[in-house]
């Protein structure tokens, strides 16, 4: 799923408080599971913004709404944004962009889109995928070097590894993990074959994916 995080309230206010009526729209899929843009988070944000507005004598009015997915027409079409001067989206970047295409008023992001991740525990996620368009997980024992290695390098641990930890100090070294897991799975020799230069053109050249297209693929 896409993992998201609320922007600082001051940043959100500075974006929207010049508008008189703001519709705060949650997204009931990734953002809700991410505990960043579900019903509860929309209510909390609306209350927080109202409270801030009343304290600063700002006239902005905030109203909450939910849609199932901000990235699909059938759900976005049901949004009733008439009468509002701005939309504050609690969706991912795709949701914000899609709403901005649909609505005539300015649409602002209340969240930052962090990564594609998996749940480690309650309210805790780990980045696992960078949507690079050329997956190597089969060769790297299911650990993505592009995502989990801070440098995204392809040939093994850099000189910064310290007791199995990354030089940034915030994670285990992905390449030590890859090496160990390949070894545990009896394919330690495969390590030597890793390290092709990455084909970044796949990512650069795939701005759309249309299965209806004649080519059956990207345009």
């Amino acid at each position, binding site marked *: 799923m896409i993992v998201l995080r609320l922007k600082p309230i001051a940043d959100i206010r500075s974006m929207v408080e010049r508008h008189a009526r703001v519709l705060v729209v949650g997204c009931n899929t990734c953002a809700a599971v991410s505990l960043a843009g579900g019903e509860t988070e929309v209510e909390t944000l609306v209350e927080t913004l109202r409270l801030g507005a009343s304290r600063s004598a700002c006239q902005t009015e905030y109203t909450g709404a939910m849609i199932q997915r901000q990235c699909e027409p059938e759900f976005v079409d049901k949004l009733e944004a008439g009468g509002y001067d701005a939309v504050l989206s609690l969706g991912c970047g795709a949701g914000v962009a899609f709403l901005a295409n649909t609505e005539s008023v300015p649409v602002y992001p209340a969240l930052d889109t962090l990564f594609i991740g998996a749940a480690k525990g309650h309210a805790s996620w780990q980045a696992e995928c960078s949507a690079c368009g050329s997956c190597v997980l089969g060769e790297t024992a299911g650990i993505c070097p592009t995502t989990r290695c*801070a*440098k*995204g*390098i*392809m*040939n*093994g*641990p*850099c*000189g*910064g*590894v*310290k*007791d*199995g930890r990354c*030089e*940034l100090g915030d994670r285990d070294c992905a*390449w*030590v993990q890859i*090496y*160990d897991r390949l070894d545990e799975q009896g394919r330690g020799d495969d*390590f*030597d074959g890793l*390290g092709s*230069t*990455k084909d*970044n053109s796949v990512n650069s050249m795939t701005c759309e994916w249309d299965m209806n297209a004649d080519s059956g693929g990207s345009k």
Partner: protein
Amino acid sequence: MTLKDAFERGEFVVTSEVGPPKGIDIAEMMHAAENMKSRVHAVNVTDNQAAVMRLSTIAACIHLKQAGLEPVLQVTGRDRNRLAIQSDLLGAASFGVTTVLALTGDHVVVGDHKQAKPVFDLDSVQILDAVAALNAGTDLMGNDLKGAPEIFAGAVVTPDSNPIRPQLAKFDKKVRAGAKYFQTQAVYDKDSFLRFMEHARCRGAKVLAGIVVLRSARMARFMNKNIPGIAVPPELINELEASKEPEATGIEIAARFIRDTRDACDGVHIMAVGAEHLVPKVLDAAGIGEVGQ
């Protein structure tokens, strides 16, 4: 004499390094380099070391070359993509700067432009691949070059890395990718280094033992705590602690390591980290005289 020549002659090779200034006043860097000129075969020039923005490595190498020194161009993958790296390798070679050290590079967030985009399009092994392609007369895509360089490329290795097995596996990859010589991270434990040399010896690449002169017990503890892959043994820390002249003791520790390991490796790379004036003193204490340039 180039670094390649020095290895081929079977000399005990000595290299050191200087860091380009943050700015265009190169006097201090040139002074540090001149000061060690008669004692080293080559001088590494760091590439935005520790991700701190400085004067261009290639420009600094050209200055050293013009002053009669043999520069080693450090090339990291942090700041340049594969076009820029190949282009810079050709540019350096066009000035006769053909000795290269390939590194992945420290991450930008440890440096002074933390918000920069980290590139890492090529890592250290892939930079060696690029050198091999250029030397063979093509770029990484197989397009022909108009005039191929003859680049002599090396790489780095951390003999005290923990865990060690992936580090050694990557060392082997670098050898296969064409690294002709290695500079190690600073090493202090003779036995540990000799064990590493048993692995390295049969791989065929030349190895320069990395030396960082300890100037105090505090510095040793700091490095143990903060610098990946450095392990100063407790007895050396005690020796520095007990010394009335810790800098002299540090020089002796470095010289002793060189004496104890010189038969097992091909030379030393002395990283003076801001105290380049100590380089001749370490070499004097180790009994290593002047080198023919």
